[in-house]
Each structure stands twice: as structure tokens, then as C-alpha cells.
């Protein structure tokens, strides 16, 4: 009986690892697809609809194209770092995915692969590394535009990471935990944090746009100024990894936003506001999480095709002169409210 439990535990771990790989390698290409459809819709075009059924095979055709392109490593680059950089963009997204509670439990299997105590810290420790990929790509390309992209990326990331941390401090003060699963449980019991901490949610959302290098903060790429920024010298599958990495990071950001502010897998009414006891509620929890993530992803895409890029000094000004003080103010307000309530 005991051995059985151990074996089942390993099987569950295997299933969850598989789920993460499927999410990353099968669903992320469809995020690219969604981006192209939404973009076409916003610009009143038709968008890709020829490959396969309603154009649903388009991402695979793109992937195949990237596979078959010639892989060029220019002569003037620092080779080791040049090859390392795309992996460093992609890897953090994959690692953080392991910490996301994408459901309560399916039968006896809990839906988070690694339920680490201070999970939030791990998410940020790992997430901070996607910047190394971009900085390294910019530097190792040994050419001017990528270099500028890399330097910009470093400055942007430093500025906005501070704000992310501070906007989340208020959340931690209220929920009294750094664990993602516990945060979701808190929201299932006490209502979504986006209603209780709207300012923190707003700041976090803006910082996530900056952190994933999405418009209006896509400075490392900035086609009109830097041609394509840090990834100019890349071709074939290395470029594909950058591309995939951007969307994987975007997906992780959406999942984080859903987990921290929009109640994770929970809905604020009966069988969905507590960990599942029967399997169909568990399955519904997964579906709820996926649906919420899809909504946030849509928001990301919507903003990209609606809002023009800021100027570089505006980006820095916004980060340090607006978001940073607001985050501090939010901590102060939260502290006062919690103090008046007599602790959380």
C-alpha cells in the first residue's frame, strides 16, 4: 500500500511535468496565433486563415519554417554567449511554470508541480533571469543595434523590478504568505485581491508589460529605432527560441496575475471556492484558470495593438517618478488599514 502511494506520487509528478511541457510547446504557439488574429481583427484585416482548418495549422507551419532555415552564426560574435542567450530567455519561463497552481486538485493529484514554501520569491528569483538572455544576446552579437537593445533592456528591467516587488509587498502583508497556493486559498475564502488591492493590481500589470518587453514598453526591440534590437543577428531556431520565450514569458505573467489578483482557479461561489472534492470540480478549476489566463493574454495583445510605444525618458520617468511612489503609498495605506483592523 505504501509503495503504491510512492509510485502514484511519481506518476503524478510525471503527468504534471508533461502538462507543463504541453502548455509551453503546444499552447504558446497558439498564443502567437491569437496575437495575429487579434491584431488582424483590431486592424480590420482577415488575418491568417489559409493553413489548415481556419488557419489553425499556421503556428506549426511557422515552426517548421524556422526549423528549416539556415542557422547562421556570424563571425564577429562571442560564440558561447551567443548560443547561450536564447536558452536563457526561454528557460526561466519554463521553470516558473512549474510553480503555478493551475488547479486545486484532480482526484488525489494536486495541480502544482512544485509547491515551494516561499514560492513567490522563487518566481522572482528565476524570473529575473530572462533579462540576462536579452542582455547577453545584445552584448554577444557584437554589433550596434543589438547592443543598444541589450543596454536598454537592463535599465528597464532594473527600474521595473523594484516596483514589482513593492507592489506585491502590500499583497503579502494582507495574505501573510509567500506561497502561491496559499494566496489562491486566501482569495477563495476572502474574495479576489484585485477588489481589495486595485492599486497593487494596476501597478503589477504595468510592470508585467515592462517585464515581458511588450508594447508600450518594447524598447529592447523597438523596430522603428533599433531595427529589431537584441535579436537582429539571430536566425533559424535561435530566433524561434527568442520568439517562443517572449510569449512563454507573457503566459507566465498572465498566470501570475491570475494567481495573485484574480483568484487563481477559484470562482466566488459554492463548489468552486474551495479545493475540489470531486473530480469534475477539479477539472472545472483547471478550466477556470485557463479561461482567466486567456482573458489576461487577450488584454496583453489588445494593449499592444492599441497603445503606441513610450519614449525612453518617459519609460524611466514613469517607473521611478510615478509607479515607485505609488507602490510605496500603497504599502503605507495597506499598513494603516491592517493596523486599524487589528492585524489581518
Amino acid at each position, binding site marked *: 500500500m505504501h509503495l503504491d502511494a510512492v509510485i502514484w506520487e511519481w506518476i503524478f509528478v510525471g503527468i504534471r511535468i508533461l502538462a507543463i511541457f504541453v502548455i509551453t510547446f503546444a499552447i504558446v504557439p497558439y498564443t502567437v496565433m491569437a496575437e495575429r488574429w487579434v491584431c488582424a481583427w483590431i486592424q480590420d484585416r482577415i488575418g491568417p486563415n489559409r493553413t489548415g482548418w481556419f488557419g489553425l495549422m499556421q503556428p506549426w507551419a511557422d515552426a517548421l519554417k524556422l526549423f528549416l532555415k539556415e542557422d547562421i552564426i556570424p563571425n564577429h560574435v*562571442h560564440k558561447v*554567449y551567443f548560443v547561450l542567450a536564447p536558452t536563457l530567455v526561454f528557460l526561466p519561463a519554463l521553470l516558473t511554470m512549474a510553480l503555478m497552481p493551475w488547479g486545486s486538485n484532480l482526484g488525489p493529484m494536486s495541480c502544482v508541480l512544485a509547491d515551494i*514554501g*516561499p514560492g513567490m*520569491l*522563487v518566481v*522572482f*528569483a528565476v524570473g*529575473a*533571469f530572462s*533579462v*540576462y538572455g536579452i*542582455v*547577453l544576446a*545584445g*552584448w554577444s552579437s557584437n554589433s550596434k543595434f543589438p*547592443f543598444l537593445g*541589450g*543596454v536598454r533592456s*537592463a*535599465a528597464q*528591467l*532594473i527600474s521595473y*523590478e523594484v516596483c514589482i516587488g513593492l507592489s506585491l509587498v502590500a499583497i503579502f502583508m494582507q495574505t501573510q504568505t*509567500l506561497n502561491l497556493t496559499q494566496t489562491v486559498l486566501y482569495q477563495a475564502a476572502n474574495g479576489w485581491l484585485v477588489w481589495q488591492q486595485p492599486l497593487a493590481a494596476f501597478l503589477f500589470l504595468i510592470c508585467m508589460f515592462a517585464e515581458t518587453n511588450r508594447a508600450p514598453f518594447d524598447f529592447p526591440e523597438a523596430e522603428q529605432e533599433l531595427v529589431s534590437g537584441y535579436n537582429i543577428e539571430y536566425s533559424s531556431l535561435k530566433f524561434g527560441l527568442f520568439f517562443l520565450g517572449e510569449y512563454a514569458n507573457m503566459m507566465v505573467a498572465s498566470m501570475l496575475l491570475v494567481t495573485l489578483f484574480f483568484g487563481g482557479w477559484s470562482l466566488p461561489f459554492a463548489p468552486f471556492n474551495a479545493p475540489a472534492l470531486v473530480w469534475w470540480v477539479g477539472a472545472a478549476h483547471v478550466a477556470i484558470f485557463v479561461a482567466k489566463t486567456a482573458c489576461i493574454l487577450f488584454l496583453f495583445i489588445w494593449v499592444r495593438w492599441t497603445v503606441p510605444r513610450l519614449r525612453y525618458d518617459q519609460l524611466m520617468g514613469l517607473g521611478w517618478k510615478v509607479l515607485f511612489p505609488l507602490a510605496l503609498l500603497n504599502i503605507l495605506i495597506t499598513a494603516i488599514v491592517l493596523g486599524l483592523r487589528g492585524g489581518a
Partner: protein
Amino acid sequence: MTAYDAIFWFFSLALLLCGVLVLISPNAVASGLYLVLSFFFLAGLYVLLQAFFLAMIQVLVYAGAIMVLFLFVIMLLDYRESRHWWHGNLLGLAGAPLAVAALAAALLPVLKRSGALAAAPEQWFEGTLENVMTPVFTRYLLPVEITALILLAATIGVVVLGRKEKQP
């Protein structure tokens, strides 16, 4: 040798190797990256000591934030000069063993006491955030606040010194 020992030696030797590579690699950016790698191995050592929170903070603050800033500065200055590994500085090379000897002299008493330290209660480091942070906000509150004040003064000083002179 247990698995614990093996992991300890792996992390320690890798840490030392990265430290040496930081010093001798001819390229400033590469030096910075080796430093990042060494922070990882150091975090691994913290994990072996059950100091999970410290390990996380080590990676988050040093590798995730401070080193990005370092790389930013290195890249901004665009330091391209290829250096010889001892920088052509004979006096510095002679000074290195002296520095190592001084450090060893300072650490030796601590190493001698390591048996006593192993017996001491370690719950401050272990596990939850509360265990780590409670001493900081109770017993060591005054030193922490004074450090914060000094850092604030240093920050203001940097801003004042770094400000461009107004053209008359």
C-alpha cells in the same frame, strides 16, 4: 563520503573555480557572468545549510538585480580592453598571497569554533520567513535602522555628487 558531502564539495569547488575565473577572464562582461554563476553556487551552499530564505534572497538580490546593474554599467562604459590575467601588475600579484594569508588568519578562529557552532541552535536560519525576520525586527532592530539611515545618507550623497553642475 555521503551524498551531502559530495554536493558540498561540488558547490564549493565550483564556487572557487568561478571566483578564479572572475579574476582571470580577459573580458569584463564574462567576469560579471562568472560572478553570477558563483552566486548560484553560493546559494546552493546556503540550501545545504537549510537556509532556504537566504539562498532565495542571494539569487534574487545579487544575481537578479545587482549583477544586472553591474553588467549595465560595464556595457555602458563599453570596456573592451583585453587584459592579461594578472593585469600586468606585479605588485598586485605579490600582494595576493598576503591578502589570502590575512583572510585565513581572520577565518581560522571561526573554523576552530565550527564544532561549537554546529551545536548551536540554528532555527534562525531555517525554514520560514518569520524565523529569519523576527530577530531582525526585534533584537537587531536598532542596528538595522542605523544601517538603513547610513545607506540613505550614502544615496543622497551619490545624488548630490553625481549631479551635473548648472551652467552659469
